[in-house]
C-alpha cells in the first residue's frame, strides 16, 4: 500500500484566520504531484468525508505551480473557543497522512 505520507514531501495544516482551517499537501516533483492529484482518494467527496465536513463546505484547490494540493474548510469550532482542541489548527492534517493512494486503491 502506498500512503500519502510515502509520496508527499510535506503535509501540514493551519488556521487561515480564526474561522477557517487549511491543509496543504506538497510534493517534491511535478511527476508525483500529477499522479497523486488525480487519485480518487483525494476527490473532494472523499476528503470531505474523511474530515467530517459537508462536501459543499470544502474547497479543494490543485496548485501545480507549487506542486501542491490545498484543502480549506470552515472550522467546526472557532479557534481558541473552550471546546477547541487545536488552537492553531496545527495537527488537523493527521487524518490524511495514512490515506491509501496506491495505484489500485479506490474509495
Amino acid at each position: 500500500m502506498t500512503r500519502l505520507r510515502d509520496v508527499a514531501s510535506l503535509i501540514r495544516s493551519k488556521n487561515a484566520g480564526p474561522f477557517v482551517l487549511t491543509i496543504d499537501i506538497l510534493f517534491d516533483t511535478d511527476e508525483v504531484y500529477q499522479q497523486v492529484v488525480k487519485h480518487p482518494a483525494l476527490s473532494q467527496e472523499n476528503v470531505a468525508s474523511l474530515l467530517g465536513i459537508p462536501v459543499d463546505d470544502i474547497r479543494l484547490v490543485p496548485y501545480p505551480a507549487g506542486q501542491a494540493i490545498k484543502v480549506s474548510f470552515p472550522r467546526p469550532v472557532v479557534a481558541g473557543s473552550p471546546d477547541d482542541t487545536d488552537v492553531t489548527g496545527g495537527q488537523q492534517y493527521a487524518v490524511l497522512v495514512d490515506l491509501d493512494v496506491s495505484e489500485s486503491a479506490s474509495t
Partner: protein
Amino acid sequence: MSKRELRYVAACGMLGTGFRAKSLRAGVARKPDFIGCDAGSNDGGPYLLGTGGITSRARERDYQLALEGAMTLGVPLVIGSCGGSGLDHSVDEMGEWTDRIAKAAGKKVRVAKIYAEPDREVLKAKFRAGKVTPLFGARPIEESTFDSSTHVTAMMGAEALQAAMSEGADVVLAGRCSDSAIFAAMPLARGFDAGLAWHAAKIMECGTAAAANRMVQDSMICTMRDGSFDIEPLDQKFRCTPVSVAAHSLYENSDPYRLVEPGGTVDTTASRYTAKNERIVTVTGSVFEADSPYTMKLEGAEQIGYQSFAFGAIRDPVILDQIESWRDGAANQIRQRISDDLGLDEGRDYALELRLYGVNGVLGRREFVHGRDGHEAVLLMLVTAADEEVAATVARAGNHIAMHFHVPEWSGSITTLAYPFGPQVIDRGPVYRFTLNHAVATDATELLRYDYEEMGAK
C-alpha cells in the same frame, strides 16, 4: 522598460522569532530603501486580542537590531501589529522602546504612531448603516457586540503607512496592520505595479518561510523592478526555488490563486516563478484587482468567562482497557455530586469537558482510530464558567472525584491519575472568544488615529 529598482529587507517573519544579526547586516549592506517586520498574529487564538499585547526580551532584541539598521542607513523602519494584536497600548510601548534605543545610539528619529482601535460609536454607526458585513465563517453580530468586545481593531492597509512616511516618519509603529501592507506601502507609493508589489509583500512578510531549506526564521531581501521582483534569503545557506516561493502562497491562506489584501485581491493565476540562480527567484505576472468599495477588516474578542483545569495521566492497563466508559462514568459522577452538594448545574452554571489525550484529544469526533492502541493516556478536565469562583470550585471537586473514580475490577479505593505537578488544579484566568471577523466599508484612514513624535537624542 526602465531599470529602476527598489530594495527592501524583512528582518524576519515575526518580531521575536529571531534572525541572525549577520543576515540583517548583509541586508543593510545592500542599502535597502526601507526595513520592515510584522509583530502580530491571530494564530494563538483570541487571548491576545482579549487581554492586550505580548512583550518579551526576544521581541525587543529583534526590534533593536532592525531599528539600528534603519537608523544607520537613514531609511524608514515599518512595524505592523505592535504587541501581537495591534492594540493602542502596544503601539505606545514600542514607542518607549524606540526612544530608549535611539537615545542609546545618539540618534534622533521622527516616529509615527498609528492607532487602530476605532471609536466604538463610529463602528456602531457603520453597523447601523449596513456597512459591516461578515467575512467567511464569522458568526452573526449585533450592535451590542461592539460594546461587549474587550478590544476591536481595524486592520490598516498600505495607505495609512504611506501617509506616515510622506509626513517624514523614520519609524512607523502601526497598530493592527495587514502584514503585507508593511512591505507593499513604499513600492506602491513609488508607482510599482500593484499585483507585483502585493504579491512580493505577501511572500516577504513571512521571512524565510518561502525558502526551500528553511531551518529557522531569518532575514530576506526583495528587489522590485518594473515587471518583476526577486526574492532572496540573506543567509547564503538558504535557497529559494520557484517551487518554494510558489508554494508559499499556500501558507495560512485558503486559496493560493487569490491572495486577499486590504483594498483588493492578488490573482496569481498568471504568476510565473523562475530561478535567477540557485538561491534567487524572479516572479512576474501577478495581477491586482481593487475592491469597490474599499473595506477594512475588523477583529474583536470578548471575555466569555473563566477556566480552571486539571491534567492527570493514566498508566494502569485495567483503566486503559475501558478508558472511555470510565471517563464517562467519572463525568456523570462529577455532574451529580456538584449538583447535589453545591446546587450548581452544568449548562446553567458551568461547562465540563473530560478530554482524553491518547484517545481522541486532538481530532475529537473526527478521530478515526478507535479502540485502545497505547499504554498511556492523559485526562484533561476543563471547566469553564462565567463566574471565576464557580470554575475554580467545580474543577477542584471534579478533580477529586476523577482521581479516585471507581474501577470495577479493583475492589477498594485507588488513585487513578498521575499528576505532573501540584497543586493539581490550575486556574488559568479569563477566557475569550473571537467576536468580529468582519469587513467594514470605509475609506482607508478614517478609523485610524495618528500621532507624530520626535524621539531619541535631543
